[in-house]
């Protein structure tokens, strides 16, 4: 998906899940991020999905601030899967060309390069050696690269490298 358009049935299906919310704010009370960062407000996010601009939510930075602790989903009396809705929104956002946070791109690059998200450093090799741990075997990066070919994972790395 490269255009700005999200098919109406997808918007409707996300909205119908959000519409279960009756605004009690339990999600807000339990949310760790909301407690320390006023930019993030799960109840407002759900309200904006129903009554506000869907595209604005997708293009906003707040969907990326959720830590995915799932407290909101576990405590919501209406069973609104808030943290799951946020993951779906992020997928829709990357689908219309919104770039995820820089740290995600770093992880994607590392994943395509080595098959893991943390590089092997000489420091850690020394630590492993001292602890009597074996050298880490390769992670079959070429297989992982083949699986991410022509996907959003690859597109994001290529875009970044070309930029």
């Amino acid at each position, binding site marked *: 998906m490269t255009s700005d358009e999200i098919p109406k049935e997808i918007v409707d299906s996300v909205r119908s899940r959000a519409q279960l919310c009756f605004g009690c704010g339990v999600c807000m009370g339990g949310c760790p991020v909301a*407690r320390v960062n006023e930019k993030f407000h799960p109840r407002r996010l759900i309200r904006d999905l129903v009554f506000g601009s869907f595209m604005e939510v997708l293009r906003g930075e707040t969907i990326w601030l959720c830590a995915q*602790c799932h407290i909101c989903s576990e405590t919501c009396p209406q069973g609104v899967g808030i943290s*799951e809705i946020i993951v779906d929104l992020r997928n829709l956002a990357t689908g219309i060309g919104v770039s995820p946070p820089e740290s995600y791109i770093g992880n994607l690059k590392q994943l395509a390069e080595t098959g893991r998200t943390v590089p092997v450093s000489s420091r850690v090799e020394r630590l492993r050696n001292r602890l009597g741990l074996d050298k880490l075997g390769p992670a079959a990066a070429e297989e992982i690269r083949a699986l991410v070919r022509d996907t959003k994972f690859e597109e994001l790395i290529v875009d970044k490298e070309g930029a």
Partner: protein
Amino acid sequence: MPEYALFLGCMIPLRLPYMESSARELLKRFDVELIEMQDAGCCPEPSLKSVDDETWTALAARNLSIAEGMGLDILTLCNGCFETLKTVDVELKGDGKLKERVNKRLAAVGREYNGKTDVKHLVEVLTGDIGLENLADAVEKPLEGLRVAAHYGCHLIRPNSLEVDDPLRPVLLDRLIEITGASSVPYFKRNLCCGAGVSGVDDYTGKALVRYKLGWVDKAKADCMAVVCPFCMLQYDLTQTLVRNESGERFNLPIFYYPEMLLLAMGAESKELAFDMHRTKMDQVLEKIQGGR
């Protein structure tokens, strides 16, 4: 005793290898056989599900298929790996169409997912396979008087489809702490996320969450915290030192990886356990435990 395919992931072997060595040592003492997983890659990281759900699912299914080929269930040491591998496994087992699409992708690299392997976290192997009674029987030098704040980490218990423990009022880690002879102290905001999942996106939020949690642990007069996940470990151990330097806060809370605590209670000497690799000083709490032993 059981045999498992050990899924190491990235954070533990490549940033916090002392967690790997103490987990291996502990499991060896209870005759749990660990078989290395050739070619296993990143789980992948739970956050990458947000970028492209189905590619993330396929990469996780590849890891699951490796264990299937070994004819073994997976044992993970990391909450992140656990959440990824277990939720993907549960999802694929319940959604035939998704499984078909994922297998189409996997066929390109000669792999296939058939749903024949289960995924377990270290906490489940300790409390389930080995069992609390057997663990307690192995304790020779109880950590009496030690006050421990249990931190489960989110992705051991949530979403509830992981089915490890109560997602809001978990008990397993408290029990594991108690069998060492230490006491698990109640504190406010026990379920508070460590913030690792957001620290890369917003540094302030990641640090503020560490500060907030440590403030409550401090009020509970805990001697230390026990964690079972490398992300939580990095947040409370390493980020704690950054928070302290930046804010001038007086936090100085030692953070144990749970297997280290149990090994000490089983009589291991602290010098066998690489506590110098922790960023927050462990000397004082070790002194309290061992009284110089």
